[in-house]
């Protein structure tokens, strides 16, 4: 199961983050928040200088492209634990 991170950060900003934190999975750049909007996870004006950004959200998508699990945290400070995501994935047939 592949994790794919998406934010409005530029590719260069993501590359820096990946290098600093040692992440190896894919980081995708959505600078105009178009994909963020299409997934309904826009947080208008909440970024630096009033920029539109994504609110934290996780979607587990199976091989056929169907959404199988959604996590929309109500509190910015509380994130999905890795175990929650793994449990959701294991529950899939």
């Amino acid at each position, binding site marked *: *199961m*592949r*994790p*794919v*991170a*998406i*934010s409005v*950060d530029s*590719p*260069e*900003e*993501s*590359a820096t*983050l*990946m290098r600093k934190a040692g992440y190896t999975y*894919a*980081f*995708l*750049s*959505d600078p105009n928040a*178009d*994909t*963020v909007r*299409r*997934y*309904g*996870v*826009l*947080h208008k004006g*909440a*970024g*630096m200088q009033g920029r539109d*950004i*994504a*609110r*934290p*959200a*996780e*979607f*587990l*998508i*199976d*091989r*056929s*492209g*169907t*959404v*199988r*699990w*959604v996590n*929309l*945290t*109500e*509190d*910015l*400070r*509380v994130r999905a*634990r890795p175990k929650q*995501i793994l449990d959701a*994935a294991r529950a899939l047939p």
Partner: protein
Amino acid sequence: MNNRRWNWPLWTGFALSLIAFFSYFAFFARLEITRDIPWASVLLFLLAMALLVAGFRRAQRKILPGIVAGLGAAVFVVFGIAISVGSKVPASPNAPKVGQKAPEFTLLDAQRRPVALSGLLASAPRGVVLVFYRGHW
């Protein structure tokens, strides 16, 4: 009372209030155990408030100590607002629900190569987890 005796509870309480505030964002917020329910920071703030009250009571003249204690309390209030109101996220009623098709996209990765959702799924037999995040600050 000797005027030259330093009102240490008052100033220590004020300093601790500032320390409690900044240490949350600089340190405690990075650890789940002290971030989700900021008990460590609240304890520091309560100690700061106790010192400020003790310092205020101990003072002969009350104006300056009153201002310092008030400012220290204000830091606590601002902290409370920042982590409650400031942590709210908007409702996302239009997010795809379980059973729906995930919207297609093509975005650039960190090396500026285009990556499509369909491409990701084709090479991931167990599926993908899209993790939307706020981005760096």
